């Protein structure tokens, strides 16, 4: 069998990651097929077999499992002469492999129901299923178990984790769009009054509605009423698949909650999380399909302002119902500084300087601040009037929502009648900017992050401006900006001052192109993830003898008896190292998704 070509790793970071993922889950042959498809784009079986240097039969067999798991797209192209089936790589499938552990953990945490977790697990390993197939796979079962499974299906479909699919589900979104557009375009009559440009634009605008209908396909008979129990249940004949887009919303909620905790506070973030979860199902798609197919901003006809739908609005009352039980809301919002003991009241910070007001500049320690802490009287915090716990909680939640709406970052926006909504496009932009700054601060250092923000603030700056406004020594600026330029965070713009563009007289200014920075981070982290995955593979290869022994039926579960002490140590070391790499992949994924998926 041909081995994986060098290009699988080197052509792009994503190719390295995706082939690595497919290799670890589905084996080398599948990885080779995926790598070939990534390299060449769309291929038919004959071409694929030739390019991958594999016989037709194994290619076809591999394609079946890859299509089932959503790693390959299928597209039938019909001409008057023949019908050719083309295959192309599908990112979603590989991402599902990457997130499979996270998905199962999320479903388990969210519902705490083993049946549901098991259902999702089956969908992840098999691709698509009907409810009837799933029930049948268990063989004869008692009525209650079947009802439970049906209920689980209904909940998962209702919450949009499982979505009904049809043929187009396995097609590339670009192909679907092209086909839809062509149909819409052909429907417009060719008249001399309509220019080609207008015809094209009209075709695109008509096709957009049709395209969305195909993407959000939902058959009328998705839910049927059970004749015996009269409960609503999912139509057992309809094929379902796990919705990756729905899971992305979960990731978005998580990222935004974490972001909110660091920007507004932990308690507010819990309230924000409840608000996000409340509207998660109906929230806008994380990845705009129109952007994915490459339509321009004008063609998408997006409104400048994000307008929420009615189902995306919420109020303090809605949020209150969803708050975690352990969350202590009492006294989390104060109307002013806590009262102090009378004797110390005159030692207010704002009063004129006394000997105790000295500030030690070397350490930055302020004596007055330390006193503040000691002077606070904890008991005084309890003085507030308690008429009813619920009313108080409602007021506190409302206060938190107001704080978030008034925050410098657009976590929430106020709508009419005390309701709020999440301005997703704005807050995601802020999240990306902050994540990028944090990465710079943690890897290149605080001064680099300071320069980056300074350039962002002033758009186009010279070293002199950085020196004056960021208060960094001029001799340090050159080395710091050089680092930022090296990592694509800054760009240099040349402003020639003489007619011959002499370098000695030219002024060089700095500016930021966020897309370049984000792409750099995205590729870099993606490569790191792939590298970690590769190391796990190498680790397994190095210890293949031991792994084969451990996986033997007679040894499984009795490792302590059948393995030598050295082998046990080796096994422990192997598990530790594998876990270490997996944790790294997990961490990197959580950063990567901010730039790649959100």
């Amino acid at each position, binding site marked *: 069998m041909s081995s994986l070509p060098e290009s699988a790793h080197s052509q792009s970071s994503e190719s390295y990651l995706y082939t690595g993922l497919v290799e670890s889950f589905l084996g080398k042959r599948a990885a080779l097929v995926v790598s070939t498809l990534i390299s060449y784009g769309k291929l038919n079986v004959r071409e694929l077999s030739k390019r991958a240097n594999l016989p037709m039969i194994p290619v076809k067999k591999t394609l079946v499992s890859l299509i089932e798991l959503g790693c390959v797209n299928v597209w039938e192209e019909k001409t008057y002469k023949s019908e050719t089936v083309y295959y192309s790589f599908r990112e979603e499938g590989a991402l599902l492999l990457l997130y499979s552990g996270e998905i199962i953990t999320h479903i388990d945490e969210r519902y705490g129901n083993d049946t549901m977790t098991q259902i999702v697990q089956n969908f992840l390993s098999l691709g698509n299923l009907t409810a009837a197939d799933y029930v049948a796979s268990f063989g004869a079962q008692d009525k209650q178990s079947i009802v439970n499974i049906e209920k689980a299906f209904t909940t998962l479909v209702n919450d949009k984790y499982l979505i009904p699919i049809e043929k187009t589900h396995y097609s590339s979104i670009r192909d679907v769009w092209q086909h839809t557009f062509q149909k819409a375009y052909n429907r417009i009559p060719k008249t001399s009054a309509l220019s080609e440009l207008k015809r094209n634009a009209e075709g695109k605008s008509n096709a957009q509605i049709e395209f969305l209908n195909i993407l959000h396909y939902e058959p009328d008979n998705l839910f049927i009423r059970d004749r015996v129990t009269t409960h609503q249940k999912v139509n057992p004949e309809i094929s379902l698949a796990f919705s990756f887009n729905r899971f992305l919303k979960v990731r978005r909620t998580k990222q935004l909650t974490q972001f909110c905790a660091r920007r507004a506070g932990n308690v507010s973030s819990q309230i924000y999380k409840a608000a996000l979860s409340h509207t998660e199902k109906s929230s806008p798609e994380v990845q705009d399909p129109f952007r994915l197919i490459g339509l321009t901003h004008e063609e998408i006809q997006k409104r400048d302002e994000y307008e929420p739908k009615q189902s995306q609005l919420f109020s303090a009352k809605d949020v209150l119902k969803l708050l975690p039980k352990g969350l202590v809301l009492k006294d989390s919002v104060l109307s002013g500084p806590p009262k102090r003991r009378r004797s110390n009241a005159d030692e207010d910070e704002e009063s004129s300087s006394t000997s105790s007001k000295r*500030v030690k500049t070397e350490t930055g320690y302020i004596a007055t601040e330390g006193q503040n802490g000691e002077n606070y009287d904890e008991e005084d915090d309890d003085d507030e009037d308690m008429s009813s716990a619920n009313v108080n909680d409602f007021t506190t939640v409302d206060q938190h929502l107001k704080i978030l709406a008034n925050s410098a970052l657009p976590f929430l926006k106020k709508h009419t009648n005390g309701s709020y909504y999440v301005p997703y496009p704005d807050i995601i932009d802020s999240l990306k900017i902050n994540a990028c700054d944090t990465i710079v601060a943690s890897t290149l250092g*605080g001064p680099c992050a300071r320069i980056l923000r300074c350039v962002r603030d002033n758009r186009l700056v010279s070293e002199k401006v950085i020196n004056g406004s960021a208060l960094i020594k001029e001799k340090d600026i050159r080395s710091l900006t050089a680092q930022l330029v090296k990592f694509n965070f800054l760009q240099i713009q040349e402003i020639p001052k003489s007619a011959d563009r002499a370098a000695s007289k030219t002024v060089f200014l700095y500016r930021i192109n966020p897309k370049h920075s984000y792409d750099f981070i995205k590729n870099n982290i993606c*490569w790191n993830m792939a590298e970690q995955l590769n190391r796990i593979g190498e680790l397994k290869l190095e210890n293949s003898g031991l792994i084969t022994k451990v996986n033997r039926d007679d040894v499984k579960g009795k490792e302590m008896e059948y393995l030598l002490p050295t082998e046990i140590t080796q096994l422990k070391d192997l598990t530790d190292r594998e876990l270490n790499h997996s944790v790294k992949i997990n961490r990197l994924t959580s950063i990567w998704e901010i730039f790649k998926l959100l």
Partner: protein
Amino acid sequence: MDSTPSVEDSRRLHSQMLLSPSSTLFTSSELLVLLKLEPSENEKLMGLVQSLINQNLVKLVKQGSELKFQAIDVSEAVKRSNMTQDEAILYSYIEASGREGIWTKTLKAKTNLHQSIVLRSLKSLESQRFIKVVKSVKFPTRKIYMLYHLMPSIEVTGGPWFTDGELDSEFVESLLTIVWRFVASKTFPQVFSNAFDLRNNKLYTANYKNYCTLEEILDFIINSQVTSEELIENDIRSLAQVLVYDDKLEKINVDCYRATMQSVVDLKEERLTEDFCLFDYLGNANAAGGNELDDIVYFDERVL
């Protein structure tokens, strides 16, 4: 009529000119009025002026196309009369540059004197404490001269953040910390007390004024007497701006600043949640050191 200027008249003209504020420029007609002379006696006036010029008591200043006269103090005139001709030329250019100072290269170009003469004359003037060298923040490599008794302008010194033309990072950093701590104590309740708990933090209501204005920060710095430098609001504005660039403060309105929660999280150096979060990294990296750092992979693997 006798046109030779009398010493008496010259002295009178000089003292009359000195009565006006220094650096006042006089036209010849104004001088005629000053001496209560008739316009026809212009020749006499010129004689008087010439004798004063010869004694370095008056200098000629060309303003536009008009020639004007400026009285020079006697002590200054004595100083000048002791100078050589080259020194006097150089001195006059240095004097004209005022608080901005003048670069040696410019001096050489303007006076058209040989380098060695310029250097020798400058050395002599410097040793007599007539002029001094100042370090410019804008052009740190240039040798800039100005009159000995003048204070360099803010453009030359760079303001309070510069000491001897170098950015005083330690001073700036300590002031930044002080400003941030002051603003943070106003933004979050009990933020620097032991009672403050990141996981269960308290906040002020949305309508409470939890921000600081520049005026308040300046008052605090003046009252706490942390520095002998005279700071103005503009200096505090630039400090606050740097803190905004450090993500420690956020600007919520014109000249109104609030501390960011992220800065408090970084200070406390503890994780908010069990899950890994990118925004926890700074604190963790500082606190953990050693092994924990090995777990962090961003750029270490693939540095392009």
